[in-house]
């Protein structure tokens, strides 16, 4: 029992604290400042708990959850994502006049759900984790409830998300019926021993579960919700959903694919390859045509799901550690660029067009320089984190014999350079239109410094994180 709790310390701690945060909202009048500090400290501690449980390996609670290693790494990653979000959010929420206290506890619940996904060793835990995360996201994306766009994004996300949940659960049910178990290890054992009840149902179940998870990762052809939801949701929520949410989807994908790959070895790999190629191309080509920066970053986030999927195609330890590295890098660069968007945005959704970024370097040289670094990193230009992330994934795909996929990846990266660099050109080489006041940087500056440090450190010294990431897949996973 003690051992079980130790394995799961980051998310049990976080879940309890999220409930306490919710109670604090109810008990204390004007509690937003207290819950803000409380949530930030909670996430800091759950990250520390993640670090301290990192060395453990094993399964707990009757084999339902895993602890340490892979799960602990993602615990740390999600805590960082949540912390960056919360640090930026208070100022943003006050400016948009939507600082209701529940925001912080909802972020905590979403992080708890993501951690549950990373810890899952049983389809039930996976399902609960995905739902806890998604339901929190449905509420958060509609958080500006007087803003028609935010409500629209929430409705679209909710209806399509619940639809995808239906597919996911049906997939789980068919896999359960076919293999007779919901435990990952038992499923893998039964598939390898060919001890299946209904062999015909297994591929259907696998297909449905892949559909459900691809929806959460916003991969083609289940990406259509992403641009609308990411554009309409409050900017800071978009930052959180598009990074931590995507990382959670891939944290679910890796163990599932490891377990289910033997059931359909060649076919599943090929399906992922086609999805990955289509996601990269569609995301980057659609991003070219956008004039709204949030929508552009949303399409770029779709494209990044395609890059990350190349790691699943490879199905190797190297590919998986490439995914983990890329998710870490992506977390920093994407949250960082959204923080800058949130700083420059004015209430009433003003200053979100690309043309509003004209001449930013003259008004805000530091913000413009940071944005430039994030854009270089997203485009995959060395020496920033995004370059090595792409490099590891591309080489993993080549090793797996998917040279054509790597060529598509390189091609779509070249397409993406056009709109990433386009923003930089706009910031540095065009004149600003008219006068305007800008918001204070304030507390967001702290999260900006963390993200920029992450992008640069991962870019200059990628081997440290990569060796940690590849060790995750050595032993149990």
């Amino acid at each position: 029992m003690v051992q079980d709790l130790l394995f799961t310390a980051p998310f049990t701690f976080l879940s309890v604290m999220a409930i306490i945060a919710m109670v604090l909202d109810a008990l204390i009048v004007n509690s937003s400042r207290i819950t803000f500090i409380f949530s930030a400290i909670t996430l800091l501690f759950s990250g520390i708990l993640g670090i301290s449980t990192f060395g453990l390996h094993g399964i707990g609670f009757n084999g339902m959850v895993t602890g340490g290693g892979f799960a602990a790494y993602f615990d740390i990653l999600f805590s960082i994502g949540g912390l960056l979000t919360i640090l930026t959010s208070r100022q943003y929420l006050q400016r948009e006049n939507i600082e209701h206290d529940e925001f912080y506890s909802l972020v905590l619940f979403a992080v708890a759900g993501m951690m549950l996904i990373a810890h899952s060793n049983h389809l039930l835990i996976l399902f609960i984790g995905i739902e806890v995360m998604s339901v929190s996201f449905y509420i958060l994306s509609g958080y500006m409830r007087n803003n028609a766009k935010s409500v629209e994004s929430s409705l679209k996300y909710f209806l399509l998300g619940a639809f995808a949940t239906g597919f996911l659960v049906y997939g789980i049910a068919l896999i359960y019926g076919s293999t007779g178990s919901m435990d990952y290890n038992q499923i893998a054992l039964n598939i390898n021993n060919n001890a299946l009840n209904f062999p015909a149902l297994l591929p259907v179940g696998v297909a449905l579960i892949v559909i459900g998870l691809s929806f959460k990762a916003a991969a083609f052809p289940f990406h259509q919700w992403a641009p609308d939801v990411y554009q309409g949701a409050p900017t800071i929520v978009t930052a959180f959903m598009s990074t931590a949410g995507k990382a959670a989807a891939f944290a679910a994908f890796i163990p599932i694919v490891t377990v289910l790959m033997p059931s359909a070895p060649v076919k599943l790999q090929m399906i992922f390859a086609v999805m990955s190629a289509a996601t990269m191309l569609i995301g980057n080509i659609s991003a070219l045509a956008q004039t709204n920066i949030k929508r552009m970053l949303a399409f770029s986030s779709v494209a990044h799901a395609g890059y990350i999927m190349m790691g699943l195609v490879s199905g190797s330890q190297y590919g998986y550690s490439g995914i983990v590295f890329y998710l870490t890098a992506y977390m920093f660069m994407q949250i960082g660029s959204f923080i800058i968007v949130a700083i420059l945005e004015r209430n009433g959704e003003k200053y979100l067009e690309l043309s509003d970024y004209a001449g930013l370097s003259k008004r805000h040289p530091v913000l413009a320089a940071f944005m430039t670094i994030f854009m270089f990193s997203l485009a995959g230009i060395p020496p920033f984190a995004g370059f090595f992330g792409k490099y590891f994934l591309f080489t993993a795909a080549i090793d797996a014999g998917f040279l054509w996929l790597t060529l598509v990846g390189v091609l779509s990266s070249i397409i993406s350079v056009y709109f990433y660099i386009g923003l930089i050109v706009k910031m540095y080489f065009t004149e600003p239109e008219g006068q305007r006041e800008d918001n204070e940087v304030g507390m967001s500056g702290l999260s900006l410094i963390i993200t920029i440090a992450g992008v640069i450190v991962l870019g200059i010294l990628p081997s440290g994180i990569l060796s940690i990431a590849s060790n995750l897949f050595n032993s149990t996973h």
Partner: protein
Amino acid sequence: MPQNIPLEYYLALSAIMFVIGAAGVVTRRNAIIIFMCIEMMLNAVNLTLVSFSSYLGDASGQMFVFFVMAVAAAEAAVGLAIVLSLFRSSQTVYVDEVNLMKW
């Protein structure tokens, strides 16, 4: 499960229910009816789970059903609140009239 009804009948019924639900989600335009269709899909899955659970003599399928029901209830609470705030902001519950953002 009654002995004289084979498992396949249950599976076929729930597959048909699932497809009807999915078709409803795709074709209907009223957000609340779409949501009812999603609930129907989830209930079709519940039937599958219960019949597999009974067939395999394993309780975890039935246990899963409770969680699906709880999650569906949570989704219903959030979903209806979203539809309500949609109605407040734009006086409609028809999803084809909700199109501020387009490509």
